């Protein structure tokens, strides 16, 4: 297994040198000759009809290029799943910050005043702002019932279990919106040439999503739209769909003005207008035997999608499929729905629905443990899913995962049992209450169900004239390590040096569509494909007689040079084909939801200071099985970075809404963890391998977002004896809850009905 020379080693980040020297060019670093700057006039109200637009005094409007919905040559939409989001509002608005008009000017400094000087008059309509208001149907703002999408997942005979249950445990849990807060704001540059067509450059995850959207918006043939990714300063899902909007805006201004146009958001606009993690509400009702075995459960999972559908159906799908977590459910019924409200559309954020439903489940497991008086570890141990058993969608676990052992190891590393006992004693005489909590969970890698089959991704590897090879994919680098790991895979597959492999810049004119860079799919799915394309190159060289069966890297380079000199081109493509054992029924929502799952047990140790009511995470142990680790330094960086975001999700990051608009859209008042806030995070890997991934890899990027929030809130409950059901959990929430508990003299942490 460990005979690999390059895979499994911490090769340095491929584009790292440009990043540490400041030479890497992000979109805002790029200037084109004659370039204008664009800005967006946005809705100030949550819902209404636009009655009048006036261009106020004090601005020389002749100097400005102005674009409205009427300037759109094709369909006024951001093409995604159902194309329901307009590119520019046409007569009505459905959320605050909805784009209405676009302005461009050569002097960037004049734009803020010009945006201010545009006055839009509205006839306001009543608006709704929460899942509950959306369910009550007081206003129908989308479709017939405000529901973007619903799913039903059913397994076993749930109705029969309630009779047999010794306990029925209920709980309701909620999570708030979360801002991705990539440090590079969103931005795009567009140029339009009547002959060549449209080109956009910018910060993005998915060049072909942007491409698809522009083709529809401009009604242009596909070959006359070109999308190029620039160095991208963080994304986390936040640059999955919204870049299509900004690209469309910049392109409309470029077409009208005949000059290149750059739109780069400032922080406040980025936070107020672009997508965030969907707020969620999850209700659990679980039948449990007195031995602590789950007999069955009902889960209602609802997410707030904002004003347009955008990605909500797929976020909902992943959240619903993960709602049963890493446990065996003899019977279950999961009802999931995504509803409309008059807030800006919510979107993708690392984990994609799973952090929401897993927060609920992992809090609920602790609640079940209390009710039947087992330890949190023991209730989990008795219900872990095992190889040969089936998930909630009926997928048989084929991997040799032993979650009991994973739990044992995490408890041992974190000294869980001894600490739990010690804290309980010490807390009696201390105002700094300590607690320890755990979460066990899974995350499916790649697109859900038939998603990968529909994507039908294509990758290429080509030989270059000077003897190196180059990877051709639309998979983007935005910090995770795409460039490095894909080059490692190809270097390993071809038995050449890491330095002999490069990767093309994602440019739709240069690279095939290897699918979007989302869903923890790049290393596993795209990586496997580039491995296979690389072998195609080797076979071509062997067949041509230029390469023997055993060769040195120098001989390989020579063979590539000779082949390219003779034939002009050396290229191999590989297209995804769904393995036969992965079968999915989209109608019944049954079958193999994911080609592979990553598994984890996380343990958080916290201290709650009862003078400030602040929580500090004092120790964090993250143990996971992610298949083969292809680059230990990058993999560890992914896990720690994800956990830091999870800590923010649990304890710091609160979006404050007022009439559907984010009120704290600044880094001053939307707080993420700093280096001073985070204790060392201890990362451990188990490596079982994975037949579906390159060199045994699975997805890794999203997993670490799922576990921290429940582990931490479970630890806070352990410290205080007070249950918390929603996040973010801020000091003022803890203050209120502790005060309430003190009032309620006879507090009992044990709830639920004994039958």
């Amino acid at each position: 297994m460990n005979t690999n020379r390059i895979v499994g080693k911490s090769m340095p980040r491929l584009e790292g040198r440009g990043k540490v020297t400041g030479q890497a060019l992000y979109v805002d670093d790029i200037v084109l000759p004659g370039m204008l700057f664009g800005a967006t006039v946005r809705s100030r109200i949550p819902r209404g009809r636009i009655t009048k637009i006036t261009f106020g005094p004090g601005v020389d409007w002749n100097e400005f290029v102005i674009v409205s919905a009427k300037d759109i040559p094709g369909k006024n939409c951001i093409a995604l799943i159902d194309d329901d989001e307009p590119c520019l509002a046409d007569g009505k608005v459905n959320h605050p910050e909805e784009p209405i008009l676009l302005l461009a000017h050569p002097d960037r400094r004049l734009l803020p005043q010009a945006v201010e000087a545009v006055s839009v008059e509205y006839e306001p309509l009543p608006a709704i702002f929460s899942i509950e208001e959306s369910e009550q149907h007081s206003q129908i703002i989308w479709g017939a019932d405000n529901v973007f999408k619903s799913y039903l997942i059913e397994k076993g005979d749930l109705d029969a279990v309630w009779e047999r249950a010794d306990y029925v445990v209920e709980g309701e849990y909620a999570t708030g919106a979360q801002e991705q807060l990539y440090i590079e704001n969103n931005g795009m540059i567009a140029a339009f040439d009547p002959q060549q067509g449209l080109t956009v450059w910018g910060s993005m995850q998915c060049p072909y999503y942007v491409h698809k959207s522009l083709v529809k918006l401009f009604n242009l043939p596909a070959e006359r739209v070109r999308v190029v990714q620039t160095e991208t300063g963080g994304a986390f899902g936040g640059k999955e769909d919204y870049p299509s909007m900004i690209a469309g805006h910049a392109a409309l201004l470029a077409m009208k003005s005949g000059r290149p146009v750059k739109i780069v958001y400032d922080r406040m606009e980025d936070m107020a207008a672009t997508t965030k993690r969907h707020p969620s509400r999850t209700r659990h009702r679980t039948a449990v035997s007195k031995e602590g075995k789950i007999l069955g459960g009902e889960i209602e999972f609802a997410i707030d999608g904002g004003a347009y559908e955008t990605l909500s159906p797929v976020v909902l799908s992943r959240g619903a499929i993960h709602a049963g977590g890493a446990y065996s459910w003899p019977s279950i019924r999961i009802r999931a729905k995504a509803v409309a409200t008059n807030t800006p559309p919510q979107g993708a954020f690392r984990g994609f629905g799973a952090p929401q439903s897993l927060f609920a489940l992992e809090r609920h497991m602790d609640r079940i443990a209390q009710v039947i008086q087992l330890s949190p570890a023991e209730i989990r141990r008795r219900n872990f899913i095992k190889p040969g058993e089936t998930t909630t969608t009926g997928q048989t676990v084929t991997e040799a995962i032993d979650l009991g052992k994973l739990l044992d190891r995490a408890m041992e590393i974190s000294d869980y049992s001894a600490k739990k006992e010690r804290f309980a004693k010490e807390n009696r005489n201390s105002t700094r209450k300590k607690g320890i909590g755990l979460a066990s969970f899974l995350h499916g890698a790649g697109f859900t169900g038939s998603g990968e089959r529909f994507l039908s991704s294509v990758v290429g590897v080509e030989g270059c004239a000077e003897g190196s090879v180059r990877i051709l994919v639309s998979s983007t680098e935005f910090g995770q390590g795409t460039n490095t790991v894909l080059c490692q895979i190809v270097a390993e597959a071809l038995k050449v040096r890491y330095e002999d492999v490069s990767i093309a810049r994602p440019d739709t004119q240069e690279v095939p569509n290897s699918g979007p860079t989302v869903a923890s799919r790049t290393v596993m799915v795209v990586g496997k494909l580039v491995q296979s394309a690389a072998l195609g190159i080797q076979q071509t060289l062997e067949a041509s007689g230029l390469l023997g069966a055993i060769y040195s890297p120098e001989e390989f380079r020579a063979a590539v040079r000779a082949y390219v000199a003779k034939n002009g081109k050396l290229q191999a493509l590989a297209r995804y084909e769904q393995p036969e054992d992965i079968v999915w029924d989209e109608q019944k929502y049954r079958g193999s939801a994911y080609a592979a799952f990553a598994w984890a047990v996380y343990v958080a140790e916290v201290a709650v200071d009862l003078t400030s009511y602040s929580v500090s995470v004092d120790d964090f142990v993250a143990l996971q099985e992610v298949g083969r680790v292809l680059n230990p330094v990058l993999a560890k960086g992914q896990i720690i970075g994800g956990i830091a975001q999870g800590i923010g999700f649990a304890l710091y990051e609160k979006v404050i809404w007022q009439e559907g608009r984010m009120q704290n859209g600044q880094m001053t008042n939307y707080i993420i963890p700093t280096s001073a806030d985070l204790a060392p995070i201890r990362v451990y890997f188990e490596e079982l391998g994975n037949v579906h991934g390159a060199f045994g890899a699975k997805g890794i990027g999203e997993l670490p977002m799922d576990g921290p929030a429940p582990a931490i809130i479970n630890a806070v409950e352990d410290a205080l004896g007070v249950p918390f059901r929603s996040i973010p959990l801020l000091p003022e929430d803890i203050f209120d809850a502790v005060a309430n508990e003190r009032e309620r003299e006879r507090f009992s942490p044990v709830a639920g009905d004994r039958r």
Partner: protein
Amino acid sequence: MIEPPQSHTKCEISFQVNGKLVAVRAYPMERLLDVLREELGLTGTKEGCGEGECGSCSVLMDGVLVNSCLVPALQAKGVNITTVEGLAEDERLHALQQAFLDCGGAQCGICTPGMILAALHLLGKKPQPTMEDIREGLSGNLCRCTGYAQIIEAVAEVGRRGIAG
């Protein structure tokens, strides 16, 4: 409301950047960040928030770590500024840049220039910082990718080996 920067006439401001004397014509209240990026083409200095919270635009001004988005151009008159472009000597990376590469301190890279300057400033004050010193010293610079651990490791590594490497 803040006065728009162009409400005054431009003036000539000269200062040193990375050891070279430069003279620019800029509005007095223009942000030093914009002068560096747009007038001097030093785009290694990044804007993250525009309000002095994230530290991505950090530069050293006469050895002091400042957020260049909060410094008016006029204030740069006669000072000595170090940006990320001034650290590597030709092909040879600065010890901090190399350590960030080796330890995984840069992911998306957008906070990296500011973070490296904050680290340089810290090491100037405390050549062998403790972990606590590093956590505290970098806490004005936000990173969303790394969770800071590998950045801290990189700075500690340079502390152990010395800046000369």
